[in-house]
């Protein structure tokens, strides 16, 4: 057939020509070289064998083609745009144009030639990956994924890029403009468009979640096929339009007509696929909005409290049938005429019966409203049976998340994973309580108060009939009877999870707890890697559990702890109502497929590395000891401490850990509720399960990064707790304000009851009320009974008022005293609260030798060591807090604290207050000896008046004051405005970037800066003196004034006091960061320019000289002129000389 012959001919020689072009050769050689190195580094036994990548083999083709595709998408632009240019320039092409072939054949031939050449390169790269795959000891081979990713990633991208380049070149006929346009489109896609409107613009697969699970394969084929076919068809349209635009006299009407027909067919394909892709996105958003709107209708209605639920579940493939026998009680203060349940909107209720009587019911989206034909009085119990069937609508879960791939990325390295909340297929099922796969007496989201949650402790029973001989997994004791799996949890649970799949299991009983490990067949690689610890596993597990129990001062509340492996796509979003992620269920942890996302699950590699390191260091350690270390490290990081920080738009957040077992000790065990303050359980949980890290502290110390508490204080400056919650802010904001409000509340209770006493009593209280939901008024009554103190009355202001206290600290004095025949240390300071509302702050001390972590103080910052130390249950233990001080409005107190060890630093946490940062450090450099024997002292002494922060004759203008002018502070660039990119930080304070410092003055916060409440300064990139800040003030008396500037030296700019005497790495850097600062003093005789050597200046006030000023107003200016990287402007002080 001439058509195919001609296409093949053109393709063959087009490919030959392209293959011989230096540009393609250079690209190919570079790509093969770089990707081979990367493959060796990532996947081969001699390289890193990064566990996230080697654990699931589809990573190999995905990783290779992902990187290559970005490169070739750009290269294709260059080569394809050369298409017509070359045809025009190379006159020999004319002899080809006079040959008998149609334009269709020629253009299609060229396209196919280039496409197949690039696909050839892709295949070579894939072969490199496959080689690594074959020689790897830990990877299996997934050949289908090689083909799948070639088709998914490369073919549509190349075809689209080629077609677009061809068409633009045919239209514009200017190579330079075409290049620019195409590169612009590629850049726009990579940096701005890729995640928008459900990835509809992502022609390069740059952000498409296409990770293939080794268990369930691609879980979103519908989306993938539509999105990729969209660009395949669009590419075809462009290529075929090029046929029509091609500057050669056509020779075949049939082919021209064929091109037109194919254009229409491809356009139709494009439209259908674009519509489908967009619909998937739009439907998800619509459905989520529908859930929110439905919840809005029902959020103020009363629900029953579920006490018992017996569920019969029959798996039917992509749907299931179930009946739920429910027993419940009315815990509301009003009678209930209707029973409300939430059941996933993909499920249909078939029948509701009470005893033998059918009840009428209706289902509005996911809300089932049942008419019991009677009123259920407060405290009264009832039972019903609901039969239902259907599939699961995942949009129901986390309705406040529209799944923005950029804001909530889920990936292993650069590989994007689809986020799933439920699986219901022929071969695999996973349904967590978040899907409401059984009737739930409450809502999954309360729109007007997202921090609200309704927790029922329910005694569940589950009977499961599976398909295809699959194994069912759920919580509790498992029995297999007559083909049914029966599950009976030993204690009431807050929710029930079911999984059905090709599961195998191992059970280990340790200290009356059964640890059950459910894994997919063949995924128990760790048994071999940790074979040596098999006989000591019980001891190790016991020890870890004891550590946890000690941390939380309570026993693990369940009799089982199951570890359930789930497909890699399973993902939970953070919720505002709880810190607990859905990966953690009562007595069950859902672990990712082959532990792929867990940092240290590559036991084999870690073992080999450690062995090598030990041998190098001549350390003798047995294999068993090493494996014990690896096991302990894994357990600690995954289930106990873990990596708890997450960067979002340059801001560090404490992200609750997915697999941390903390919630087992509170969230799955206790619940406090309040109709007036429905946020209370989230507040308690946030405080009692709080995971603290000094990492934030260190970041703040180094770069001025705001802590979560600071951010919360800034947010709460303008709105009360209630107002903020009703504004429905982001989950990070909610978490931040809940945390600070929880800290405040618990410090209030501790201050009234005593730190130790409260701890002991409250611990017992929550143990006594295990698996119960306790009304907060009951807790209040019980506290009053025990301590004579009611916290409930405080809650009104705590929840509704926006006024914040503000604390000033003066007169810090440290003395060595003799008390009780021992040398001890007394630290005295005055704290005042000039604001109109009462406030609480706590203090602690860093003690011991210089630079070390200290004893009994807060987590220290070891000199030169790893500073990331996580502490769990800090709120519960409160062992780091020395004292909690309450200050009434306008009150000042002299505070004294006696310490056994020498104090190095006083650390104040102002909790909920105007103070920014809320954690303030006061270094204690000098300790005076007090010779007299001190026997008595008052810990707190109210002073007559609030101490002045400025002395008579002093005028201070800080950068926060009206007299300070820095011009326009940093703003969003016009380009960012056009593109709709905004600074996501909800505060005005930035982070110090030494290398990419902003041109405009940017406010930053550090505890070493000057300020009344807000310890801030402004900084900017150094320049030639073209930008400046000014401090101006009114002077009442003319005369001689001493003028001072404030130098606040933070972590990077402070000379480290290292015991080793070595120059710390930061020293050199600080020299480059801060150097000369140029001040202009305006006085009667003119302007004097003063240069301050920042590096050698003393921290605090530095004298700029004495000047006669007779004018009304005085002015000091500072410019951005400096030899350092940045300039910093804080405060100026004028002191009358006489």
């Amino acid at each position, binding site marked *: 057939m001439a058509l195919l012959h001609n296409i093949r001919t053109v393709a063959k*020689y087009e490919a030959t020509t392209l293959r011989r*072009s230096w540009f393609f050769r250079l690209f190919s050689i570079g790509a093969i070289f770089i990707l081979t190195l990367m493959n060796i580094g990532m996947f081969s036994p001699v390289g890193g064998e990064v566990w996230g990548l080697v654990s699931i083999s589809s990573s190999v083709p995905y990783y290779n083609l992902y990187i290559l595709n970005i490169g070739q998408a750009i290269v294709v632009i260059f080569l394809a745009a050369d298409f017509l240019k070359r045809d025009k*320039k*190379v006159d*020999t092409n004319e002899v080809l144009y006079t*040959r*008998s072939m149609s334009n269709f054949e020629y253009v299609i031939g060229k396209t196919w030639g280039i496409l197949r050449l690039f696909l050839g390169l892709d295949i070579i790269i894939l072969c490199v990956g496959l080689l690594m795959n074959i020689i790897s000891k830990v990877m299996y081979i997934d050949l289908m994924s090689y083909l799948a990713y070639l088709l998914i990633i490369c073919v549509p991208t190349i075809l689209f890029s080629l077609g677009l380049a061809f068409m633009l070149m045919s239209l514009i006929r200017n190579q330079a403009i075409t290049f620019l346009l195409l590169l612009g489109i590629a850049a726009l896609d990579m940096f701005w468009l890729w995640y928008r409107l459900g990835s509809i613009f992502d022609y390069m697969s740059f952000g498409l979640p296409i990770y293939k699970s080794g268990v369930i394969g691609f879980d979103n084929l519908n989306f993938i096929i539509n999105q990729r076919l969209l660009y395949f068809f669009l590419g075809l349209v462009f290529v075929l339009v090029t046929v029509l635009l091609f500057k050669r006299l056509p020779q075949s009407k049939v082919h021209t007509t064929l091109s037109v027909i194919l254009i229409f067919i491809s356009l139709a394909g494009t439209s259908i696929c674009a519509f489908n892709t967009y619909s998937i996105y739009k439907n998800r958003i619509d459905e989520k909005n529908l859930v929110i709107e439905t919840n809005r209708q029902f959020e103020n209605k009363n629900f029953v409290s579920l006490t018992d639920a017996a569920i019969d579940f029959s798996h039917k493939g992509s749907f299931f049938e179930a009946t739920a026998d429910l027993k419940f009680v009315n815990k509301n203060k009003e009678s209930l005429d209707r029973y409300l349940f939430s059941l996933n909107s993909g499920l249909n209720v078939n029948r509701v019966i009470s005893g033998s009587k059918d009840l009428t019911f209706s289902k509005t989206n996911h809300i089932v409203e049942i008419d019991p034909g009677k009123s259920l009085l407060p405290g009264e119990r009832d039972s019903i049976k609901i039969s239902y069937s259907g599939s699961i609508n995942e949009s129901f879960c986390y309705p406040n998340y529209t799944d923005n791939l950029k804001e909530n990325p889920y990936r292993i390295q650069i590989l994007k994973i689809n986020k799933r909340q439920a699986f219901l297929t022929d071969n695999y099922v996973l349904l967590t309580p978040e899907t409401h796969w059984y009737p739930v007496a409450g809502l999954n989201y309360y729109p007007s108060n997202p921090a609200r949650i309704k927790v029922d402790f329910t005694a569940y029973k589950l009977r499961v009939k599976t398909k295809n001989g699959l194994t069912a997994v759920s919580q509790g004791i498992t029995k297999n009877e007559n083909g049914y799996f029966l599950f009976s949890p030993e204690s009431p649970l807050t929710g029930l999870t079911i999984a059905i799949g090709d599961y195998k299991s191992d059970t280990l009983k340790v200290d009356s707890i059964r640890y059950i490990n459910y894994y997919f067949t063949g995924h128990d690689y760790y048994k071999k890697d940790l074979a040596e610890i098999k006989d000591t596993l019980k001891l190790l597990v016991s020890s870890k559990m004891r550590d946890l129990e000690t941390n939380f001062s309570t026993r693990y509340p369940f009799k089982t702890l199951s570890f359930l492996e789930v497909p890699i796509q399973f993902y939970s979003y953070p919720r505002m109502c709880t810190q607990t992620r859905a990966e953690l269920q009562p007595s069950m942890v859902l672990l990712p497929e082959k532990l792929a996302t867990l940092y240290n699950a590559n036991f084999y590699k870690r073992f080999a590395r450690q062995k090598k390191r030990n041998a190098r260091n001549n350390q003798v350690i047995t294999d068993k000891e090493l494996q014990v270390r690896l096991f302990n490290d894994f357990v600690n990081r995954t289930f106990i401490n873990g990596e708890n920080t997450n960067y979002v738009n340059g801001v560090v957040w404490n992200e609750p850990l997915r697999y941390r077992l903390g919630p087992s000790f509170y969230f799955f065990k206790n619940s406090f509720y309040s109709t007036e303050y429905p946020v209370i359980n989230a507040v308690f949980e946030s405080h009692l399960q709080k995971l603290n890290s000094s990492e934030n502290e260190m970041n703040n110390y180094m770069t001025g990064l705001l802590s979560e508490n600071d951010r919360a204080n800034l947010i709460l400056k303008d709105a009360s707790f209630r107002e903020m919650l009703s504004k429905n802010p982001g989950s990070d904001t909610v978490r931040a304000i809940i945390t600070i409000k929880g800290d405040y509340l618990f410090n209030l209770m501790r201050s009234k009851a005593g730190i130790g006493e409260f701890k002991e009593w409250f611990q017992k209280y929550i143990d006594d009320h295990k698996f119960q939901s306790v009304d907060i008024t009951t807790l209040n009554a019980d506290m009053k009974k025990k301590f004579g103190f009611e916290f409930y009355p405080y809650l009104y202001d705590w929840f509704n008022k926006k006024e914040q206290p503000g604390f000033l600290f003066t007169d810090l004095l440290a003395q060595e005293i003799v008390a009780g025949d021992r040398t001890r240390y007394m630290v005295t300071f005055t704290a005042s609260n000039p604001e109109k509302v009462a406030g609480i702050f706590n203090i602690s001390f860093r003690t011991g030798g210089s630079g070390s972590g200290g004893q009994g103080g807060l987590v220290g910052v070891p000199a030169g060591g790893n500073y990331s130390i996580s502490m769990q249950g800090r709120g519960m233990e409160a062992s780091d807090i020395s004292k909690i001080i309450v200050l009434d409005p306008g009150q000042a107190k002299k505070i004294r604290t006696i310490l056994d060890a020498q104090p190095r630093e006083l650390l104040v946490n102002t909790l909920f207050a105007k103070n920014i940062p809320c954690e303030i450090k006061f270094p204690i450099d000098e300790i005076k000896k007090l010779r007299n024997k001190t026997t008595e002292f008052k810990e707190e002494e109210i002073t007559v008046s609030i101490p002045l922060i400025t002395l008579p004759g002093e005028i201070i203008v800080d950068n926060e004051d009206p007299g300070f002018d820095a011009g326009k502070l940093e703003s969003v660039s016009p380009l960012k405005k056009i593109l709709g990119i905004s600074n996501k930080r909800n505060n005005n304070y930035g982070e110090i970037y030494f290398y990419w410092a902003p041109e405009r003055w940017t406010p930053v916060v550090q505890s070493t800066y000057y300020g009344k409440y807000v310890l801030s300064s402004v900084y900017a990139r150094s320049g030639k003196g073209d930008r400046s800040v000014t401090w101006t003030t009114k002077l009442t008396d003319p005369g001689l004034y001493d003028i001072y500037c404030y130098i606040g030296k933070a972590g990077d700019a402070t000379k480290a006091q290292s015991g080793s005497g070595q120059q710390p790495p930061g020293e050199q850097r600080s020299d480059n960061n801060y150097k000369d600062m140029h001040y202009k003093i305006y006085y009667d005789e003119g302007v004097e320019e003063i240069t301050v050597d920042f590096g050698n200046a003393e921290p605090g006030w530095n004298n700029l000289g004495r000047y006669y000023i007779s004018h009304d107003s005085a002015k000091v200016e500072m410019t951005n002129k400096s030899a350092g990287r940045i300039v910093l402007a804080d405060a100026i002080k004028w002191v009358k000389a006489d």
Partner: protein
Amino acid sequence: MKIEIQGLNKIYPNGNQALKDINLEFGTGMFGLLGPNGAGKSSLMRIIVTLMKPTSGVVLVDGKDIQKMRKKLRSMLGYLPQDFRFFTSLKTWEFLDYSGSLAGMKNRKERLAEVDRLLDQVGLLEARDRQANKLSGGMKRRLGIAQALIGNPRIIVVDEPTTGLDPDERIRFRNILSQLSQHDVTIILSTHIVGDISSTCQGMALLNKGELVFSGSPENLVKHAEGHVFKLNLTPYEYEMIKEKYNIISTIPVDNGWEVQVVSDDIPEFNSTPISPNIEHAYVYYMEQKMHADIIE
């Protein structure tokens, strides 16, 4: 095969009229298109090979408009453009293979045999595996003619084929075309080198500034110049005088002066002897006449 050109006009978008009402007719054998640079030869060629559409007029092949039978025409066409220097990165044999394949030679084995035969015919067999881009100018022209010949075309259009060739290569090239013209093939040869036409063409046309100034056989063109070509032996002084007045075709230094050939309607002064004109003389005479007529108009 009969090719008729009727009322052919070509006006480019910039307003330049390359062809003005051209009417021509010729059959098999070699047909020469002669004219100075810019006469419109290449435009006419490009229209004949369907690279370009005329503004008006038609080109008929066996009575059929070539614009309506592009596929058929292209399948029997071999074309060598005026510029044939820049190649894509293909080897000599690959380029021929590409052309052959597009010329409809589907059988690879036969095609490769034909490639080698043609390479041999044009003396490029030794350069078979060399990059076409790296060939010398003459070799490139030879490759050009080889690709124009591949696939047994019935119409061969060669535009300025001998430009830049050395005498040997030019002779070889003429011989190839001559041999081909013995078969049932129409060869349209465009050139501004008069010698190419005289030795090979049965019919010819003379184009000047887009207009057809002559069509017929080379002999007829020569006839027009009979009695208008003279040989003169001149002293240097006389030569200076003659130079201003007549169109000198050739100048040969001889003892005590020059032997020159001139074309003229009048018998020149001095010692002039009429000589038999060749096609070159006729071409110059014709162009002179045309130019003179233009001035009078």
